[in-house]
């Protein structure tokens, strides 16, 4: 599903944000990326999501050669992935339902089907009763779950999450990671960046440890 070959990313004249990184995540697998802040976790996820282009090296995601993908082909590629951010990035000018429906709107779903899918996604994260409220009124944990519902509502083949538990207390964090585990069980490939080593350890999944833009350690089989 994800394959990086000696990928380097440099922003301007700064030091390499990622240096010579190679990794592989098979379809249907779930893996974690850990490391201190500034280690390159976000850059790695942004490269895989096609939000950045590598300075050197090759990236293959879901059959697309990202380093060669034309600007026109990028939107279609992005529709096959779901992204979860640490800061949720919800839109406060519209209710929860509309936030979650955004990817379906882009995919031009018709109303009845859209309603069904949004409700299913909200139900999955336990927020069906909040569909009409403004996300501003929700707690941090609830906001994060709305962000997750938005990331999975269009049933992407790949779910990328950048520090999804960063602002949450341990109980909520565990709940969120359990959700990702559920999605993975139904076949969604997942790559989650987190610095919560203890929690990750309990999940029993492959772990990549990044430090200063390099992979310093690997745990598990498929990563």
């Amino acid at each position, binding site marked *: 599903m994800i394959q990086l070959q000696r990928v380097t990313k440099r922003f301007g004249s700064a030091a390499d944000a990622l240096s010579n990184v190679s990794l592989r995540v098979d379809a249907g697998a779930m893996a974690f990326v850990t490391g201190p802040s500034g280690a390159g976790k976000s850059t790695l996820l942004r490269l895989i*999501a096609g*939000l950045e282009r590598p300075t050197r090296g090759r990236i293959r995601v879901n059959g697309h050669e990202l380093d060669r993908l034309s600007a026109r082909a990028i*939107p*279609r*590629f*992005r*529709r*096959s992935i779901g*992204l979860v951010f640490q800061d949720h*990035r919800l*839109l406060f*000018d519209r209710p929860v339902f509309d936030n979650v429906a*955004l*990817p379906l*709107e*882009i*995919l*031009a*779903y*018709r*109303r009845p089907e859209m309603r069904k899918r949004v409700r299913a996604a909200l139900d999955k994260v336990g927020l069906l009763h909040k569909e009409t409220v403004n996300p501003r009124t929700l707690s941090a944990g609830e906001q994060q779950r709305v962000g997750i519902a*938005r990331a999975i509502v*269009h049933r992407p083949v790949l779910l990328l999450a950048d520090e999804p538990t960063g602002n949450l207390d341990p109980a909520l964090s565990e709940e969120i990671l359990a959700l990702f585990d559920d999605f993975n069980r139904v076949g969604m490939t997942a790559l989650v960046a987190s610095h919560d080593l203890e929690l990750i350890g309990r999940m029993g999944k492959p772990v990549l440890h990044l430090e200063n833009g390099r992979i310093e350690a690997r745990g598990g089989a498929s990563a």
Partner: protein
Amino acid sequence: MRPGRRLFDALPAWLDSHRDAARRSLGRRLQAPVLSLITIAVLGFILALPAYLWVLLDNARALSAHVDHDPRIALYLDHVDEETADRLQDALDDDERVARWERIDADTALTAYRDSLPDPELLDWLEDNPLPDVIDVVPASTQPDTVAALRDDLRALAPDAGVVADDEWVRQLNSLHELGLRILSVVVALLGLGAVLILALATASELRERQEEIAISRISGATHRFLRRPSLYGGVLTGFGGGIFSVILLLVGVALSREPLTEAAAAFDLEFTLRLPHAGDILGLILVGLILGWLGARLGSGHALRDAP
């Protein structure tokens, strides 16, 4: 569009998506009504000025066309010998371009002039009749070109005669009208460009407010076209509003200037009423508003989306 879906299935979804974009765009305008109204007012003012000038010009042209006026050519024979005068009269008899002609000799002319004066004795101190013999020619056609050709031919026939066609003022009015149209088209081009730029600016600043939504949509795979769509609907809505507003301004302007213009025309012995713009003119004005609105939104969104993260 999801791959594999047929056009037949995709069309309603595409229409849904357009309806959503239009509705959202309208909603955004209703959320900030003052700003939207200001933009609409600016466009209305920009459109109303050239439209008003056009109505004036159109009326002026109608005036020159409607003045019921047979062009005439006067041949003054004071420096013409009798032989040439005869030749001239024979030519006039034969020329198909001449409807009729009449020779008015100097004495008849003076008598007629004397009779028209309130104090005819005034002319008694004249020793001689200063008026020349005149041939008054009525051309068969009122076409300015035909009249001018006839005038030139007569001039060639009797180089010493004073040949004057009295359609000069119509020609002058026509050329003034032409000039007016030229000036108007320059004004229209400049104001139109200004309007497009103002609307582009408004669109770009609106898109800046939607920056987060655009960034999230991009991440979710939105195309340029999808992101631009609400702006284009917004531009068309603003254009429509501006067009309607300019029509109102135009009608008010015409109504207010009708009476003073009629009075001014009366001072020149002209019967003139400023006519209201036709339905076609009004629709045209609204259409111009729509087009300018669309162009401005297209320019502004193209620019803003290229720069957006």
